[in-house]
């Protein structure tokens, strides 16, 4: 069956451009409305396809029931790259009807994991880059950085996600192999840029100021006499390194780390080791 799907006949599309865009928009809205710990985005995926299924299996009640069943299973992936999966799925069901459903199930199952990995990494990296620019400008009273970020969000919503769905529809499963290397290269490059921005943000938005300690009668100004001579923003680098280390510990979560950092800072402030930045 997979040979048949690889067949270039798939490029003779039945779906119009607008119908494909609509599926992408539907996915953006429905994907996580009923997100839950049991089946995650399952209901969102099915809801996205409801109008397509109703149309595609108009004269095939058995196929329609099978399709509803196929799309009621667990699904969770990256909100953006899922558009590729949706595109491939719609192309197969469009062409083969209910005969294609076992293939669709297998494709959803095998692609959602890798796409979640690559996609989430790209999403969190790009959001950190745009977010860092927006935050640093906002803290200086400028709306510009936020504006740039919002333009990016609209590009994702109205251009990139529909485009991914169309690519998935036109190129089918074949695409996954050719796309894999490109996506990996893209993720690596984005990571470099992301790390550079994170380095800059550590130095710019984390504020740590050390106070003075009384050591056997002589008062030592920690900030001016100990840390500043080593390097600027020493405190910010130290606290990030500590958090990074703690996050590597088993059972550590963001919320636990938040409480640890708060408690530690309060204790150090109590003894005057940390002061108001």
């Amino acid at each position: 069956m997979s040979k048949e799907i690889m067949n270039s006949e798939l490029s003779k599309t039945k779906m119009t451009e607008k119908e494909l865009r609509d599926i992408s928009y539907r996915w953006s809205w429905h994907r996580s409305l009923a997100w839950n710990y049991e089946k995650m985005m399952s209901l969102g995926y099915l809801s996205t396809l409801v109008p397509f299924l109703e149309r595609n299996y108009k004269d095939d009640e058995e196929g329609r029931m099978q399709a509803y069943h196929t799309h009621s299973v667990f699904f969770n992936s990256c909100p953006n790259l899922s558009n590729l999966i949706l595109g491939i799925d719609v192309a197969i069901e469009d062409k083969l009807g209910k005969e294609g459903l076992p293939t669709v199930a297998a494709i959803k199952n095998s692609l959602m994991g890798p796409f979640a990995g690559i996609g989430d990494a790209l999403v969190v990296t790009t959001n950190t880059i745009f977010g860092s620019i927006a935050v640093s400008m906002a803290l200086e009273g400028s709306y510009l950085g936020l504006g740039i970020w919002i333009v990016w969000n609209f590009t994702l919503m109205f251009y990139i996600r529909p485009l991914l769905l169309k690519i998935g529809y036109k190129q089918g499963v074949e695409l996954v192999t050719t796309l894999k290397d490109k996506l990996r290269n893209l993720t690596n490059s984005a990571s470099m840029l992301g790390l550079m921005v994170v380095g800059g943000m550590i130095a710019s938005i984390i504020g740590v100021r050390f106070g003075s300690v009384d050591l056997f009668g002589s008062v030592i100004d920690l900030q001016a006499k100990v840390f500043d001579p080593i390097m600027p923003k020493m405190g910010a680098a130290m606290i990030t390194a500590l958090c990074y280390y703690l996050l590597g510990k088993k059972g550590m979560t963001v919320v636990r780390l938040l409480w640890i950092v708060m408690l530690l800072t309060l204790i150090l402030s109590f003894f005057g080791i940390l002061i108001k930045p």
Partner: protein
Amino acid sequence: MDGVNLSILQIILLTALAGISIIDQMTFTLGLGAVNGIIGVSILAGLVVGNPMLGLLVGGLFQSYALGIGMFGGTAIPNWAAAAIMVTGLAGSVSNIDATAAIIGVPVAALTVQLDVLGRFANVAFQHRGDKYAKEGNAKQVLISNTLGLLGWTISRMTPVFLGLLVGPALITMLYESMPIWLSTGLSAVSKILPAIGMSVLLRYLPTKEYWHYLVAGFVLVAWFNAPILAVSLIGLALAVNSFKTASNQTKLTETVEGGGFDE
């Protein structure tokens, strides 16, 4: 610090913003999202209290806590957007931001994280409802079940904001007056240290061990040379594009060699 007076209409609008914010995060993510749209939603909250600049500054502060943190696979994270809306509503003026954020914003965000978990559990019921109707092939009821999920999201985010805004003004004044100096100093210190958490989460997520030198370069540009973040990003972009091109060429080369053809 004097407590602010919020009208009931303002409280309702701010509470609604908390709902809109989580909906945008779970759907279109156009810039008001509870994780990636905190600045935008705070500016709107600022407009509600008649001071958008206050919202911009509060939003910048709380967005800095959320940077680098995603909600992947349903990870529960502190409720920073709800806290930002509350602080914008309660701070009254720009000079009170740090104190309000430290006294009420950060604790509320951390304490209400369990509400998010609760909301995601509530959605299991709607999933079961949807499953039942999917078995019958009932399109309309499947869509209704999915849409009902909005309840869990919005109620879990709007409740803390609503209650916080109701009792907030009195609570803040009381806390502010009774708080020992070391504690308020400590909380201010905390509010400037918190971005370190998001940054380190991201460092765990990215291939830091492999590409640590880019981290160092970014740090140096800002710590020693005070470069703006936009400048750091653009230098980073140049390096990233360069590496992408090199890697793509290498992939092409391998393909050509493996294919046995040199006709390129």
